[in-house]
């Protein structure tokens, strides 16, 4: 397991999301996941990789619907992987900004 100290080398915004998504590494993902009480598996990485790809293209993290429509992860599984607010939690672990969400 990665030591949480790895998170001390990068900066987070006031919402606890990584300041620069290019600072992200899989080790950092593990560190943030550990804070959230999550152990990352290949299934988590399907979501994380998709979220990073969308963020690079659009500047915004994907919605839950976006994730479930474009990966083989169902909403039910998404909740199991990232309990309590999957879109937000997945974005944080993927090193992205807090999703703009809805107005």
């Amino acid at each position, binding site marked *: 397991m990665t030591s949480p100290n790895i998170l001390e080398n990068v900066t987070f915004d006031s919402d606890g999301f990584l300041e620069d998504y290019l600072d992200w590494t899989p080790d950092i993902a593990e560190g943030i996941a550990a804070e959230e009480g999550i152990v990352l598996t290949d299934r988590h990485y399907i979501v994380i990789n998709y979220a990073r790809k969308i963020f690079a293209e659009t500047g915004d993290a994907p*919605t*839950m*619907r*976006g994730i479930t*429509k*474009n990966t083989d992860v169902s*909403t*039910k599984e*998404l*909740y199991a992987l990232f*309990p*309590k*607010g999957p879109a937000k939690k997945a974005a944080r672990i993927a090193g992205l900004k807090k999703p*703009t*969400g*809805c*107005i």
Partner: protein
Amino acid sequence: MKNIVILGAGTGGTMVANKLAHDLSPNEWKITIVDKDPRHFYQPGFLFIPFGIYTANDVIKPKKNFLPSTVNYVIGEIEIIEPAQTQVTLTDGSVLPYDYLVIATGTRLAPEEIEGMMGDGWYKNIFDFYTLEGATLLAKHLDKWQGGRLVVNVAEMPIKCPVAPLEFLFLADWYFTEKGMRDKVELIYATPLPGAFTKPVSTAVLQSTLDDKDIRVETEFDIMEVDNETQVIRSYDEREVAYDLLVTIPTNMGAKAIINSGLGNELGFVPTDPRTLQSKHHENIFVIGDAANVPTSKAGSVVHFELETVIENIKNHMAGLPLEPTFDGHANCFIESGHGKAYLIDFNYETQPLMGHYPIPRVGPFTLLEETRANHLGKLGFKWAYWNMMLKARPMLVSNQMSMAGKVPVSEN
């Protein structure tokens, strides 16, 4: 002769048709507008129908009354848009070629998106009020209802008029109080949001109103299914909320034709530049109103504020000029809070809802973020302004861009 085709003759399409008919030369441009339904609905009025305050008569007028006679008005259903061919095909097979296209197809309610929503209880003890049919049937049901647990649930964000579910609860509290049966009714609001509303400042104000009215809020509730048998709604994280009467705001999606044409995002809303309101993918397509994916509220007031940007940028594009990034996300909504009072909130892409007076700084007559009788009258007056001023794209007292004069930003905490 060149063609401008407007898809949808609701709030936005009607305003665009009036403005373009006024601004463009009829010898140069043929303006066509298409809609599948000949009736224009004043949708904000749907909120008042369940409580017997309005009936269908208050909210329906013929669409053609609001369209200029110089515009070619086609009643028909859009089947597919083909940007590569610059043409739109209707379900009856007719083809409308365009030089410019304005998409104003709004949102569609999709209760079928949630498992069990349209089961045995649909329109028996499960209703929506975002359609005329749902609101009318709910009025009949409430009239005879003996009380119990009334749950209002927002299935998924974004929804148009995100304050309407709260207004429904405030009005329900008032309605049952007037009927002398408030003590027989439990009011519960189950929302996917982390608080009562989408913006932190208004959430704080509205939360205290909910507390005062004894309305319980279940936050971060992402509905997975409706169990018609046991009368509970269940969330993805396995929470259950029991209901006797379920009032749902179903998933709001873009038109099927948008999705079938590959022009929509995962919910069928069109990717649109938030400042210029041009489609992100096709330079001769502009988008107004609920159909766009721009990050502001889906509301009639927003459509009104977007109008000038859309019209000016169509004309700029025709003249080969750069587009102006003039839309700032401006939205304002009256929030009916029951007992003859209402709140008013005003915000844009950057600024949280503000305290102050509106539209004239320090004078009003409307007070922002405070519950007053004048705001309530403003809300009712909106119906008159909608039918008589807005749809015809007549100038109104309010400006498109949000003004900071006379307003005090409220701190977020």
